[in-house]
């Protein structure tokens, strides 16, 4: 049993020209933990996600995943290590069927080789289709597997994106605003689905604006404002923290300007 955290962010900093999008951010996600990341718009949450998944290179600092430094890896290598993500603005592939969309994640896990395709290797194709069906059933999408992704409802597309990420068999699932655009019932269902995944051992890191969703689901919450981490604690601690309240409600004009 290892005790090191699954994900460890050390002094992560990202500059865009003169703008400090992420400023000396440190934080961890323990194995099996559900962690929320909240903060006002423009706080740098999505940028931080892009740094963790190596979409955007760090200006300084480092990110460690499962005890190894991943700061210099490419995003596909990080994904293969077991870190899967979804996107804030849904990025399903509209011209592909639901099944094919999910198979992309399985391809990431099992590798993609033209030789296997040319030689028609059975075992490889069976591995991928088995994994794809498993995940489709898990996400309740097995009945629409043949539909084009473009024809799915918004809610279903959310599940499709999570299913595609699950096909990678990740150890850490990073969700960028999973509940955005969903109604209360759908949000509750999604919360239940995500909690089930976590009960099976998957670690979670999610950005969300729906406070109920975060407070109910997450065991720990990190709060970001203007690129910096301003609080880190249980949902109860966070909801009473004066600094957090100030960042959200804005007690003076200067702070508001920074957060925007």
């Amino acid at each position, binding site marked *: 049993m290892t005790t090191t955290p699954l994900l460890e962010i050390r002094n992560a900093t990202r500059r865009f020209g003169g703008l400090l999008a992420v400023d000396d951010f440190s934080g961890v996600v323990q194995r099996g933990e559900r962690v929320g990341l909240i903060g006002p718009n423009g706080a740098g949450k999505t940028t931080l996600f892009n740094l963790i998944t190596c979409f955007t290179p760090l200006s300084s600092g480092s990110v460690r995943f499962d005890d190894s430094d991943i700061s210099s890896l490419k995003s596909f290598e990080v994904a293969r290590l077991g870190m899967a993500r979804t996107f804030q603005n849904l990025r399903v592939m509209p*011209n592909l069927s639901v099944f094919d969309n999910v198979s*992309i994640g399985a391809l990431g896990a099992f590798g993609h080789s033209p030789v296997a395709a040319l030689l028609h290797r059975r075992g490889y194709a069976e591995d991928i289709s088995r994994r794809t069906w498993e995940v489709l059933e898990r996400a309740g999408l097995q009945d629409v597997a043949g539909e084009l992704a473009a024809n799915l409802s918004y809610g279903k597309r959310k599940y499709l994106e999570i299913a595609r990420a699950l096909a990678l068999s990740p150890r850490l699932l990073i969700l960028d605003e999973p509940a955005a655009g969903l109604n209360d019932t759908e949000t509750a269902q999604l919360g239940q689905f995500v909690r089930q995944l976590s009960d099976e051992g998957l670690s979670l890191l999610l950005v969300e604006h729906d406070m109920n969703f975060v407070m109910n689901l997450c065991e720990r919450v990190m709060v970001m404002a203007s690129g910096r981490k301003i609080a880190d604690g249980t949902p109860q601690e966070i909801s009473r923290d004066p600094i957090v309240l100030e960042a959200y409600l804005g007690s003076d004009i200067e702070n508001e300007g920074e957060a925007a």
Partner: protein
Amino acid sequence: MRRKLSILVILIAVLVVLPGILVAVGGGYWFRVATTIGVFIILTMSANLITGTTGLMSIGHAGFYGIGAYTAALLATNLHWPFYLTLPAAGVVTAFFGILLALPTMRLIGIYFAVATLGLGEIIHLTLLNWVGFTRGPMGISAIPGIALDGLFSASDIVNYYAVALAVVVAAFALGRLTHSYYGNALRAVREDDQCAASMGLNVVRLKIQSFAFACFFAGVAGALWAHTTGYISPADFRFSESILILAMMVVGGLGSLPGAIVGAVILLGLPEVLRPIGDYRMIVVGAVMFLSILFLPRGVLGETSVLAVMRRQFGLAWDNVKHLGWRQ
């Protein structure tokens, strides 16, 4: 079972029925039309792997076709290699040049990639045209030996037809397996959203290079077939306009579809022949077919993605990241 039956039907049609019809209508000239269409079917199917399936707008395909043709022609005339060696050699040499020339462009995105391939096509064309000592320049290479095997068969229109037809079948089979498989899904993921594909663990650059290499291999084989079946090649056969013709065939047939590539090549090369009786007006009809198919069949006859979707992505992506304009980090 049904699959095997349909393959059998296609093989009989290509190897027995079609040549039978061609002999019945007078052979000779019609066989040459059929071999030209066959060569362009291979070109369109291979370009389709890059543009239709992987979503990279390549408009330099004729250049690679030219590399294959000149490789085969020079090996056959200077070193007297037989066709069964020049064909695979042309494919391998072209794939090698494809990878070499494509490497620096692989991180380019959208319209920038298209312009880079246009440049590559022009560089190849101008090299063929001006390197007179090696390629004989605008005089071209003549007296390229035909497709013949001592004691078995000698060069003729029918032999040419069968050689091209077999190459089309092999290319369709190989490209079909590459596209209609999970590997094909990986390529399609690059077309639909390359960043998202990367976040799902796909090695996007490697996939792009591989699709380029396979497409160039078959473009090279098509060039070798062209050289051996016509007996004479010159740089004029491999100009930018040929690349555009290939692109048009892809668009009319439908991006991303192998049968579509065949349909497109048959329509755009077959129509002018069928319409020969109406004289010069026939090219207007061909133009109208292209124009109307864009208007009314945005996905082409059999395509899986619309031209506009690919174009929009080509242009849209280019301005995705202002700091690295036209590049993917």
